[in-house]
């Protein structure tokens, strides 16, 4: 007997968890003849390589110049390079501890800023994002909207108030009583690395919560319900399911945030001021050229040292961008 197979479309809201849309395979373009496909590939690849080349040329020039001394750099362009010119003296100067232009300490300072400024927002935002996505509490939507709308506050307007907070604390004088309450004591953070990563952490939070919330709220509801029946509470669900399943988005955010904190100049300059011991690489590189740019020839090598750590971070986290981590969870 033939049974008509009725494919039920889950109409009720609770069944609407289908976030596995049609697989979008964009590469199925050239289904014509082989020559057609080859031409199609060529038309895509040639312009792409051209763009890559144009984009890479400045970096290449900088890289070559970083191995040429002051005289060579002043006399001819990097494309006139002769192998006999090449020297690593620039790197020596920049890295040597005795030099006033040393990059070594500043790399450590930058790490001391960028690592806490990456890990703390992720840790806090992941909990917050899970709460906003999967825990039902009163005022959830309003609180979420309030959090996200903080994205609109420009960093620059908060710099001076924050600096005042760090150096003086926060005090409120109660009206009509002549009494002053100290809400936040004077921590005397000016010039410290703490002031920098604390600021980065605060300003990263809205975006981190927004990004992680988008991902975590898209995880299949069935998995959480199944875990609840299996006996998991929210904390277990978070640590055993949400964190392992969110690795791609955590890695993505970590890369963005690390690069942002590493490359930041404005916050570091405001918070650290003139405390040269705590200069991160960005300030150090900017100060390197010296009066009238007489040490400008050191900039290329310093810039490459500055860029080296982010490259390591990028390539080491890149492998977590594995697609299809959710494959096999739901649907067949």
């Amino acid at each position, binding site marked *: 007997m033939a049974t008509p197979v009725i494919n039920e479309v889950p109409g009720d809201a609770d069944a609407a968890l289908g976030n596995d849309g049609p697989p979008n395979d964009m590469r199925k373009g050239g289904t014509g003849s082989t020559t057609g496909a080859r031409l199609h590939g060529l038309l895509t690849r040639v312009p792409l390589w051209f763009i890559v080349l144009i984009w890479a040329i400045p970096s290449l020039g900088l890289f070559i110049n970083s191995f040429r001394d002051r005289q060579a750099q002043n006399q001819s362009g990097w494309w006139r390079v002769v192998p006999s010119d090449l020297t690593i003296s620039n790197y020596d100067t920049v890295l040597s501890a005795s030099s006033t232009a040393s990059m070594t300490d500043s790399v450590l300072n930058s790490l001391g800023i960028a690592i806490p400024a990456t890990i703390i927002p992720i840790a806090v935002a992941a909990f917050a994002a899970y709460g906003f996505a999967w825990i039902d509490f009163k005022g959830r939507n309003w609180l979420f909207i309030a959090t996200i709308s903080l994205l609109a506050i420009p960093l620059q307007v908060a710099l001076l108030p924050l600096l005042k907070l760090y150096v003086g604390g926060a005090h409120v004088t109660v009206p009509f009583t002549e009494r002053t309450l100290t809400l936040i004591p004077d921590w005397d953070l000016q010039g410290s690395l703490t002031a920098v990563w604390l600021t980065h952490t605060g300003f990263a939070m809205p975006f981190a919560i927004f990004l992680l919330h988008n991902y975590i709220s898209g995880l299949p509801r069935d998995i959480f319900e199944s875990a609840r029946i299996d006996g998991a509470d929210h904390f277990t669900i978070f640590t055993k399911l949400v964190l392992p399943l969110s690795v791609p988005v955590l890695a993505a955010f970590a890369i963005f945030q690390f690069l942002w904190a590493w490359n930041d100049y404005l916050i570091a300059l405001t918070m650290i001021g003139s405390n040269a011991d705590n200069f991160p690489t960005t300030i150090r590189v900017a100060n390197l050229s010296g009066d009238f740019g007489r040490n400008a020839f050191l900039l290329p090598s310093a810039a490459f040292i500055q860029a080296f750590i982010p490259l390591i971070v990028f390539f080491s986290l890149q492998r977590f961008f594995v697609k299809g981590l959710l494959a096999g*969870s739901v649907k067949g």
Partner: protein
Amino acid sequence: MAQVVLKDVNKVYPNGYHAISDLNLDIADGEFLVLVGPSGCGKSTALRMVAGLEEISGGELYIGDRVVNDVHPKDRDIAMVFQNYALYPHMTVAENIGFALKLAKVPKPEIEERVRKAAAVLDLTENLDRKPGQLSGGQRQRVAMGRAIVRQPKAFLMDEPLSNLDAKLRVQMRAEIAGLQRDLGVTTLYVTHDQVEAMTMGDRVAVLKRGFLQQVDTPQNLYDKPGNVFVAGFIGSPSMNLMKATLSDSGGGIWVQFGSQNLEVSPNTVAANPSLRSFVGKDIVVGIRPEDISDAELAIEEKPNDSRLTTETTLIEALGSEVIVHFPLDAEPFAIMDAEFEGEDAVEQSKDAQGRTIYVGRFSPRSRARMGQPLTIDVDTTRMHFFDPSTGNAIRG
């Protein structure tokens, strides 16, 4: 293991939608009860309320002897199999199956032992170290089952667990799940929209429509004695022919008049259902199952004209073992589905060029019916179903 009892259970959503109305179900210890209905009828909601994933708005839910309305899902001692399996994608099969035991702080050697046993039952032993993404649909389905059975819960709850499998695998898993449930003897509530699953798997079947329970009975009783016109139309494929008619009394017998033709109700049927007489001269709904209609040419003995209708063939679907024949009658159809369900489960009553409704008969493959040719059919008048058009309920007794 325990009985599961729903007593006057209601579900009203915050937006005022009344999903379940006074649902009473009594699932005996070890029983396999199937909840079936068209989509949107509230069957999944009912199951989720038993699981504790959905709050109960009114009434009482017992698992064992305990009212569990406000008990957390994890403390209800139930296991649920989801439509999408809901496997944990980053864990191996063994970790998936053992997850609940691990959370319950069962000692590690015992977890391993129980996972191994469950895997052996489900034929998953070789796949224990694989991730769900590496398994086929049927294997994932088994892992989901394994997660349920390893806990030895008081009750299994299954939410359309077979709907993501292809047709062949579905038939196989249907038998496997039913067999497993029988062996384990665990009380099971199974939700499906597929009436074949309902009929083949359940000890009893409960039919739900828009949150109202229509009938609970064994599959055969449901088929033979549908309590109302909805159950009659929903159970059975092709579904029962339902037509509006009038009853008349002539020459001692009771006749069903629809359109220009009529049939005499078998005296035995009238004797068994004396209340049928009170409908004489009134409108009535007559239900005839397709298999109770046969090709008159194949009749071994000449049948009287009072069980015979003339029409013509409009469509033939030869299935090898049987032939589904479509033919028009000028009897008005009785629409069983509400407009809400149309296009989903409602079998659209098609009409021919003259506006006559198309009905369906299931003939022997020896039938010589040809498309467009005149057709004479015999109706088994002892097996006709009668319903009150005002209430939709079956006329019995």
